[in-house]
C-alpha cells in the first residue's frame, strides 16, 4: 500500500512538473509582437528622410529590435516598386535618405505612399506599416520696408507642369538657430496665398558679422510630415566674442582677477605651511644624524 502511495504521489508530481515545463515552453515559443513606425521628413537641402523604428514588447517593456531587415516599397500606378531594404541599428532605428531631385510617384490625390515590411523571425512576429505624404516646398525671402526687416515665407507645391500652387492653412514655426536648439519667434498658419510674414526683431544676437540662420519648420504635419528650411541673413546684432569687455569674466577666457588672487593666497598659504611642516620633520631627522 505504502509503495503504491509513493508511486502515485511521484507520478502526480511528475505530471505536474511536465505540465509546467510544457506550459513554460509554450510561453517561451510564443512570438513577440513587433511594431513598425515611420516618419517622413524633408530637411533643409530638400533631401527627404524616411526614419523607421522597429519595436517589440509593450508598455514599459518596449525596446528596439536591432539588426532587423526592413523592406521599403512604393506603388506607381498600382504597380509595386521595391525601393530598398534597410537594417536597424542597436536601438532598432534606421533611416533612408533620398536625394532632393528624386520625384516620388503620386496617387490621384497627390499622396506618395511608402510601404514598410518586416518579415519577422523565430521569436518575432512580422509587421507592416505604411506612410503617406505630400510634397511641399518652402521659400524664404527677406525684405526691408521703411527700415523694418520683413521675413516672408511662402509654402507651395509644384504641379506636373511646373506651376507653383500656394498651400494655405499650414502651421509654420519661424525661429533662429541658437547654440543648442532653435529659438522660435513666431508660429502662424499660411494665408490663402500660402504666405506667412513677420517682422524680424532687432535684438537677436548674430555672430561676429551679424549672421543669423533663420529656420522655418512644419512640425509633424499629417499630410506633409516634418519640413525644415533654413536661410542665412546678416540681420543679427554683431557680437564680438573676443571684445575686451568679456575678458576676465566668468565666461571669458581668463578668470576674474579677484578669483586668481584668492586662489593664489589660499594655495600659497596652505603650501607654505605644508613645506614648513616638512622642513621641521627633515630638521628632526638631521638632529638624529648629528648634522646640527
Amino acid at each position, binding site marked *: 500500500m505504502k509503495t503504491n502511495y509513493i508511486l502515485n504521489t511521484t507520478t502526480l508530481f511528475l505530471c505536474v512538473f511536465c505540465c509546467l515545463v510544457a506550459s513554460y515552453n509554450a510561453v517561451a515559443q510564443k512570438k513577440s509582437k513587433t511594431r513598425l513606425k515611420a516618419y517622413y521628413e524633408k530637411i533643409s537641402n530638400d533631401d527627404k528622410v524616411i526614419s523607421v523604428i522597429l519595436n517589440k514588447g509593450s508598455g*514599459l517593456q*518596449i525596446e528596439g529590435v536591432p539588426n532587423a531587415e526592413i523592406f521599403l516599397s512604393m506603388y506607381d500606378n498600382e504597380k509595386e516598386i521595391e525601393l530598398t531594404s534597410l537594417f536597424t541599428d542597436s536601438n532598432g532605428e534606421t533611416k533612408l535618405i533620398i536625394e532632393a531631385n528624386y520625384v516620388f510617384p503620386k496617387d490621384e490625390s497627390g499622396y506618395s505612399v511608402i510601404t514598410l515590411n518586416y518579415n519577422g523571425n523565430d521569436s518575432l512576429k512580422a509587421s507592416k506599416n505604411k506612410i503617406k505624404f505630400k510634397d511641399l516646398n518652402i521659400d524664404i525671402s527677406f525684405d526691408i520696408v521703411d527700415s523694418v526687416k520683413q521675413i516672408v515665407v511662402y509654402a507651395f507645391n509644384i504641379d506636373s507642369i511646373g506651376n507653383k500652387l500656394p498651400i494655405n492653412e499650414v502651421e509654420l514655426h519661424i525661429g533662429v538657430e541658437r547654440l543648442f536648439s532653435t529659438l522660435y519667434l513666431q508660429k502662424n498658419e499660411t494665408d490663402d496665398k500660402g504666405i506667412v510674414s513677420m517682422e524680424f526683431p532687432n535684438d537677436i544676437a548674430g555672430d561676429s558679422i551679424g549672421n543669423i540662420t533663420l529656420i522655418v519648420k512644419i512640425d509633424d504635419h499629417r499630410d506633409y510630415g516634418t519640413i525644415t528650411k533654413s536661410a542665412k541673413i546678416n540681420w543679427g546684432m554683431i557680437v564680438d566674442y573676443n571684445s575686451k569687455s568679456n575678458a576676465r569674466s*566668468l*565666461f571669458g577666457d581668463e*578668470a*576674474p582677477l579677484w*578669483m*586668481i588672487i584668492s*586662489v593664489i593666497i*589660499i*594655495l600659497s598659504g*596652505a*603650501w607654505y*605651511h*605644508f613645506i*614648513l*611642516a*616638512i622642513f*621641521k*620633520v627633515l*630638521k*628632526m*631627522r638631521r*638632529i*638624529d*644624524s648629528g648634522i646640527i
Partner: protein
Amino acid sequence: MDSNLEAKELLEQNISFIEPPNKKWIFKVFVLAIIIGVGLYALVLQVIKGHIITGMRDNVVWGVYIVNFVFVLGLSYAGALIAGIFHLGRVEWAKPLQRILKLITVFALIIGPFYILLCLGRPERLFNLFIYPRLQSPIIWDVTAIVTDLIFCIVYMYFTYIKDFALLRDITASSNLYSWRKKMYKFLAFGYQDIPEQRKLLNQALDIMAAIIIPTTIIAYSLLAWLFGMNLKVGWHSSIFGPFFVLSAVYSGVALLILIMWIYRKSQKLEKIFTDNHFIYLGFALMVLSLFYGYFYFSDYITDWYNMQKTYTILWDKYFDFSQYGIPFTISIFMVAFLPSIIIGIPWFRSVNSIAITAILALAGLWMMRYLMIVPVLETPYLPIQDIRETWVHYSATWIEWSLTLAGIALFTLFFVIVGKLAPIIPISEMLEKKEKNKVDSLNKSKLATSN
C-alpha cells in the same frame, strides 16, 4: 627608549598585528578580494560597452557613482577635520581615536575620486582637464582641492605614525620578525629617537599640519558642494549647500568612527582602549549633529516650499509621494534627523551597542539622503523631459554600479585589514604620552596635597 617595555605591553595586550597572518585574516582578505574582483569585472565591462550598461542616461547623468563620490569624500574630509580639531584642542580622551580618523581620511580620499572617474563617458579625455584648465570652473576647484587635500592628509597621517614606527623599530629590533618589516619600521621611523628637540619639532610639524588640514577640508568640501550649488537646478541652487555639506560630512564621519571603533572593540577586545565613555561622548556628538542636520534640512526645505515655484513643487511632491520617493525619504529623514535623539537622548536606550547601531543606520540614511539629493533633482529639470523612452526618464542603478559600490566598500575595508597588520590601529606613542602626562599630573597633585 625607557618606555619600550610599557609600549610593548600595550601593544601585546591590545594588538595582534605583529603576529604573522592567520587563517582568519587570510579568509578576510580573500573574501574582500573576490568582491573587489567582481567590481573590476564590472569596470572592464563598463569601459568596453560604455555607460549604456549603467542606469545613467541623457537626463539623469549622475547616479550611484556620484552619490558614492560625495559620500566617501565627505567621510574623508570629516576624518581630517575631526582629527585636526581633536589634535589642536588637545582633547585627551580622543587620543585613541586619532589613528582611525586619519586612516578613514586617507583611505576614503584614495577611493572617493575613482567614483567621479566612473561617471566619465570618455575617460580618456580627462587629461584635457589638466591641459586646458579654467579657473572659473567648479570642477577645477574640486580637482585642485582633492589633490591638495590628498597630499596633505597622507603626509599628516605619516607624521602621526613616526613616533609609533620608532617604537616598533626599537621593540622589534631583537625580535624574530621578518627582516623586511624591521627595515620598513626603521626607514619609516625617519631617525626619530624621542630626543626632546626631535619631539618638539615633530609636535610643531603636527600642529602646523592639523592647523592647515582644518581649513583645507572645509574649503575642499564646500567646493564640492558648490559643484552642485552653482547649477541652476531645483534642489541644488542653494546658498546653504556649502555649510550643509560640511555638517553632513562631519555627521557621517562621526558615525563611521563609531562603527569602526565598535568593530575593533568587538573583534580585538579593545574595551580598555575604546571605552564606554568614547561611545557616549561620540554618541552625544552624533545626536547634536543629527539635530543640526534636521535644522539645516528644514531650513532648506521651507525656503523652497514658501516660494512655491512650479518645478520646486514638482520636486518636493516626489519626496512626499509614496509611489515615488516617499518611502526612502521618510525612512532616511527619520534615521538621520530623529533616531539619534531617541536612542542617545533617552538614557534607557543608551548603550554601546545601541549607539553603534544608530551610527550604522545614520550612515545608511545619510547615503540615502545624498541619493535623494541627486537623482530626483536630475529627474526634475526646468524644461520637461520629452521624446525620450519612459525607461530613460527614471534612474535605476544596474548591477554594474552596485558591484562597483560594493568593491569600494571592500577596498576601504581591505585597506584597514592590511594596514592593521603592518602598524598599530591605535596611536601607541600618543597614548604613552597621555599616560606619562597623567602620572606627572597626579604626582603634582599629591605634592600639592602634601605641602598643604
